[in-house]
């Protein structure tokens, strides 16, 4: 135990810190504090833009959570965030830095739409399950495309997964501006609308759809795997101590491939839920960056399954709140600033957790 201290200028107090084991409850404190600090920090930029930060945050909060319509819209955004967040959490558990959820989401949306375009004659009841499988499979394959370079060619998965995002987005643009464009759509870059039996049913007041239960089901499966199955134990061991895992006979290559298949599959399922449940067609810029926000969702929840529900709703609220402040003259990129600063405070705070910091009166008033 090494303890250090500095005397705060003025000499009345000193700041002491010593290392300690991080406690479980401090994790929650760090998450909450990070959100609060990130809002304060973003407030500076709002003030620089000539607006009152308190008013802006109030508008954001009211837009996202204040009305039944806003809340329903927040949950609509939370669905893809939850599924993509689950996906990247799987990967981050074993320190595989999948930042390709955006691309995996997009190919999931593309594959689900491909079913509607190339197989118009299937029985009506079969569309949703087939579209779901196609979306999840395509996302999983996209995840594997990022993983195989890592496992067999030592390529950093951050780079491969991110490059695949750009490729997926260009593929989407090609399709909706080109061969899949609705001929009766007045040149709108999107496919024709899906038939009703290809859509996930909505419920409640707004656009909230059955994808919510896909997301919640995903949380349950994640929890079961991680905390109730031997495989989850192996994954947690691999994340905590890869060397020990290797000695215990766990094949790292096999685990990485499996995890990336699932990770991408979850993001692909999110893409299917978005086209089938919300837009009811594949269209230009189908994702406002869900795959990137999912990174924040995962870290904010500390990869905890129940925490993911809370953080995805919160980040969904930040996106919806971001739309509502556009009306008072702030760009929607405000929500990215909030998200990025949340991550800064999270990782800074995470390190501070392992210190005990105390403010003490110096024994002799006036310092030295």
């Amino acid at each position, binding site marked *: 135990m090494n303890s250090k201290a500095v005397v705060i200028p003025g000499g009345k107090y000193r700041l002491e810190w010593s290392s300690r084991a991080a406690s479980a409850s401090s994790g929650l404190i760090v998450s909450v504090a990070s959100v609060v600090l990130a809002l304060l920090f973003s407030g500076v930029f709002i003030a620089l833009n000539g607006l009152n930060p308190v008013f802006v945050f109030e508008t954001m909060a009211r837009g996202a959570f204040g009305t039944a319509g806003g809340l329903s819209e927040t949950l609509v955004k939370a669905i893809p965030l939850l599924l993509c967040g689950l996906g990247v959490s799987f990967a981050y558990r074993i320190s595989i830095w999948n930042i390709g959820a955006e691309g995996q989401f997009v190919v999931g949306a593309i594959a689900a739409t491909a079913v509607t375009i190339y197989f118009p004659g299937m029985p009506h009841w079969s569309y949703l399950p087939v579209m779901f499988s196609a979306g999840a499979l395509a996302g999983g394959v996209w995840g594997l495309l990022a993983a195989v370079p890592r496992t067999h060619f030592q390529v950093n998965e951050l*780079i491969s997964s991110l490059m695949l995002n750009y490729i997926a987005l260009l593929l989407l643009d090609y399709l909706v501006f080109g061969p899949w464009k609705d001929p009766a759509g007045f040149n709108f870059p999107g496919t024709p609308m899906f038939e009703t039996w290809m859509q996930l049913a909505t419920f409640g007041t707004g656009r909230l759809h059955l994808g919510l239960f896909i997301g919640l089901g995903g949380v349950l499966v994640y929890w079961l795997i991680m905390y109730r199955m031997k495989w989850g134990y192996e994954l947690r061991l691999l994340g905590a101590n890869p060397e020990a895992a290797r000695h215990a006979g766990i094949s790292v290559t096999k685990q990485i491939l499996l995890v990336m298949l699932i990770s991408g599959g979850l993001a692909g399922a999110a893409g299917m839920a978005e086209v089938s449940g919300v837009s009811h067609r594949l269209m230009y810029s189908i994702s406002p960056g869900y795959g*990137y926000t999912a990174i*924040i969702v995962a870290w904010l929840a500390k990869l905890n399954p129940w925490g993911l529900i809370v953080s995805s709703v919160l980040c969904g609220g930040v996106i919806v709140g971001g739309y509502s402040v556009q009306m008072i003259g702030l760009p929607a990129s405000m929500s990215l600033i909030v998200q990025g600063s949340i991550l800064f405070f999270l990782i800074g705070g995470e390190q501070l957790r392992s210190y005990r910091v105390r403010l003490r009166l110096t024994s002799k008033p006036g310092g030295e």
Partner: protein
Amino acid sequence: MDFITALLVAALSAGTPLLFATLGGILSERCGVIFLGTEGAMLMGAVVSIMTLSRTGSWPLAVVMAMLVGAAFGVLHGVLCVSLKANQTVSGMAITLFGTGLSAFLGKPYAGLPVPAGIPKLNIPVLQDVPVIGDLFGSQNVLVWASFMLVIAMQAYIYRTGWGLKLRAVGDSPSTADAMGIQVAAVRYGHVVAGAMLIGLSGAYLVLVFSPNWMEGMTAGRGWIAVALVIFARWNPVRALLGAYLFGAFEALGYRIQTVTDAVPPYFLKMLPYLITILVLMIIGWNNRRKPSGQPQSLGAPYYREQRT
């Protein structure tokens, strides 16, 4: 100009922002700190330089401001990763997300507006008239010349000076460097900040020279390609120069092919740099499977003095 010459000129132009960012990445990684915020720091450098140039009309000030904003992100990365010993990968992701958002926020009023004339070109009388070489170097931007000199300076610095030796010692074995009396944290801070300044500069080049205007997310993955180029270059500045122009050529090739034929949809041509990045890294990985990659040995690992053995 024939096709090949035009391609070379375009490769030089498209390769220069990659070169600055790759050199910045090399400086940072040489001391053992991975900087993955390149994409965000580039965008911030770009937006700050266009803001400065539009308001003051002074291009040197615009370049300096871009480097300063890069430095600010370097300090942030240093505080998180060197002092607080946070995960370098996650800190880099945070810088990229934050920089993307803040640059879009700040750049909103400038989006789509033409960039005011700024950075001058150096006309070299005799050289201008030489075929091919004249097209390439006869009337080249001052920042391009600066990048050439930077490559030479960095090559000499890393391999031929005492400071460079200390830098490599910190990157390979910080505990040994510490025992030799080198201030590990100071070396890391210094090089991460210097590297981030070059990344900010690459953003300035991108918007002031390469593109006709500022656009949200205009780096389009170039920051990540630069991260890949650091590996391609085996952390060596001269190899970084070759790699940057090679990738510049691939980017330019996509546009060139479009002007010649429309058989391939432009969307697929735009995929080329991203596809090639993955393929090139795979080839390097395959070649390196039985020999060291040249990577600084303590790359990514925070240094805990109290755990020194």
